[in-house]
């Protein structure tokens, strides 16, 4: 049986590491629908995946700005038409432009909420309306959504909302047998972290591959015993 995973923000960081983690494993996830903004990283990511494809899996890349609601509304029916049911969804794409409240540009706040909160909501709602039944949805939140720090107002707010939304979805989608998994990584060596903490040495902190391993565990059968909580992973 062929199963399809959709991963947003898949051009780098935790999204790409998660794609690689599933892709290089002998499992029933055969089709990889990857979403990211147009970038050299994204083109490179596709090449990298296909260069080492031990189980003959398929990769489909869609360039999209997830802050564009109309674009999400147009893309989801196309994805369903081409790929059929999406069994697994990883809402990973994240955006941040950290600033203290006195300096926050409202447009940046809107973009943060747009990418980090509205996009996962819209992807799930559009797919549900199209009759999609998920086996699981992974929402990549953040410890920033649990504890606020100076300068992170917009990002922390968006992730706190994502954690709350995940709890609601978990209850509402239980009637379909859908698992809704929330993971909140602490500091992790990604481009986004670099914006939040520009002076940090990324080699000293958790790596995207570590988070991908945790996501893999949560989606495995044993993950059922862990996924009732927003799982915090941090070094």
């Amino acid at each position: 049986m062929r199963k399809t995973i959709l991963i947003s923000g898949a051009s780098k960081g935790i999204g790409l590491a998660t794609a690689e983690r599933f892709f290089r494993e002998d499992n029933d996830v055969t089709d990889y629908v990857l979403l990211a903004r147009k970038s050299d990283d994204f083109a490179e990511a596709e090449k990298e995946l296909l260069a080492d494809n031990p189980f003959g899996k398929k990769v489909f890349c869609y360039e999209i700005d997830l802050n564009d609601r109309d674009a999400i509304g147009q893309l989801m029916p196309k994805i369903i038409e081409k790929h059929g049911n999406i069994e697994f969804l990883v809402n990973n794409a994240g955006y941040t432009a950290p600033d203290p409240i006195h300096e926050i540009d409202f447009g940046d706040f809107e973009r943060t909420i747009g990418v980090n909160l509205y996009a996962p909501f819209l992807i799930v709602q559009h797919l549900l309306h199209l009759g999609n039944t998920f086996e699981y949805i992974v929402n990549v939140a953040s410890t920033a959504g649990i504890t606020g720090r100076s300068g992170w107002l917009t990002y922390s707010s968006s992730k706190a909302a994502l954690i709350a939304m995940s709890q609601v979805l978990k209850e509402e989608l239980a009637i379909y047998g859908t698992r809704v998994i929330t993971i909140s990584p602490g500091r992790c060596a990604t481009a986004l972290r670099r914006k939040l903490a520009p002076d940090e040495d990324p080699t000293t902190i958790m790596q995207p591959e570590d988070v991908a391993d945790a996501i893999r565990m949560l989606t495995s059968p044993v993950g059922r015993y862990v996924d009732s909580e927003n799982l915090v992973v941090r070094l």
Partner: protein
Amino acid sequence: MYTLALLNGGVGTRVAAGQPKQLIRVNHIPAMIYPLIAVDDIPEIDQIILNFPAGWEDTMRKLVADYAIKTPITYVEGGDTRHASVRSMLEHCDNEHVILHETARPLVTKAEFEALIAADKDNVSFMLEIPFTVAPVDPDTQQVTGSLERARLRNVQLPQKFRKTTLEAGHAYAQKEDVVFTEDATLCAVAGADVYYIPGNDRNFKVTTKTDVRLAGYLLAGDDDDA
């Protein structure tokens, strides 16, 4: 193949005044959605007849679209009585076998529908043992008129399945004899059909009062799993 006839037509005010009873929401999800989702992946059920109270068809259609129910649905306006509703739904039934359910039982499971379909008789109802004693009385004089043997009584539940012709004959009988039944298993039995039961589950109770709604929500949320 089977048609699910989902009774959804009577307007009741016992739970929320001013709203038809079937728009009861359990955990904020309309109660009618739970059985629709429970049967949507059952291949033996290829038609659903959903009845609606006058004026509510658009609402029903929107909810069915929002929740992306895939099984084809025929919408039939509810009648003045349960008899009338079932009769008008039967006219639209394309299959030889009918399953009756009501939206006021949202805790029904897919497995229960499957067990009903798998039962080897044609006319079968879920029924429950009665854990209390009932007495026959004369309500006018308040006199107790005898006793009933609990072991030979059952609490009639839904869903039920019938051969379509059996259900039609039952309703023709009720019309001819001018008698009213509140459910169809006893109606068909009295009309002369062979009707059987299989044991039901007390989780699949009828949501009637505000307390029922809260209890159903609690059970559906599964919050009772801590040690």
